[in-house]
């Protein structure tokens, strides 16, 4: 890291401190580099000896009570809180108006898949055993082999349908979790917690 990179990074991690302090800190490190260079050290060498800019920045932040997220949160608690509330309300409205309809529709389709799968399996049993339809309705019973083959086919088809539905349910579940996480992240991000280090 050369001098410019080091100072850039340090200033980046110090964001949030008062400008006058930043200028002061900046000039201290600029001076340090100048002195080091005049003693024949390279910029890279000096950067290395100074140590990780993030750590140095954290040292400063400790002094001003910006050390951890907790403190950050407390210092501008009210403004963060309002912002978070607004973002949350916005998201809820968006979800109810835009997302909820298609989502419920999708869940309904999935539910009907289960229904179709189960009814195909039931019909497979019916065909397989010719019961109870053959008792109540005077329809001509097909040949026993036809019934067995057709019944097994229906059973397989129904099972496949159920398996597919279970798979789709899992997918929907994962997407839902991801979507909720994304929502929460959005609240944190737009709600002013983005400076947490």
């Amino acid at each position, binding site marked *: 890291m050369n001098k410019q990179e080091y100072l850039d990074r340090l200033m980046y991690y110090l964001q949030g401190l008062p400008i006058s302090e930043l200028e002061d800190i900046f000039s201290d490190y600029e001076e340090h580099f100048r002195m080091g260079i005049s003693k024949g050290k390279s910029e890279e060498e000096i950067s290395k000896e*100074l*140590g990780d*800019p993030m750590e140095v920045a954290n040292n400063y932040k400790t002094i001003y009570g910006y050390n951890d997220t907790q403190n950050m949160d407390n210092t501008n608690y009210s403004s963060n809180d309002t912002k978070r509330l607004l973002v949350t309300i916005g998201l809820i409205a968006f979800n109810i108006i835009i997302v909820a309809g298609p989502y419920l529709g999708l869940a309904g389709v999935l539910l009907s898949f289960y229904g179709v799968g189960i009814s195909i399996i039931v019909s497979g049993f019916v065909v397989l055993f010719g019961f109870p339809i053959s008792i109540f309705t005077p329809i001509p019973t097909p040949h026993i082999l036809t019934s067995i083959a057709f019944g097994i086919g229906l059973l397989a088809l129904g099972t496949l349908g159920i398996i597919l539905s279970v798979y789709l349910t899992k997918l929907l579940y994962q997407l839902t979790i991801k979507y909720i996480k994304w929502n929460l992240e959005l609240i944190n991000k737009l709600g002013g917690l983005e400076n947490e280090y």
Partner: protein
Amino acid sequence: MNIQFKKGVLELCVLSLLEKKDFYGYELVEHISQYIDISEGTIYPLLRKFRTEGYVTNYLEESQEGPPRKYYKLTERGMEVLEELVIEWESFIDGVNNILRGDLS
């Protein structure tokens, strides 16, 4: 070494050096890192902390090369803190040495 421990020791070293004479930042860093392996960048935040807590004050003094240097001077409050830290340090070192020597009495 444990970072918190090192920080404490560093505070002691800086205050103790400033008791002997006024230093400017680079000079202080150079002097300390001659004896102890530290991240040099941690001295400046420490000096700032001392200033906000009133242990040291700043003044600028012209130098032959380059712009004026920022010197640090120990205040009376700083002197008191140093005394306390020295007492703490010595009793700590005594304690550790006793353990190392293995006196179980």
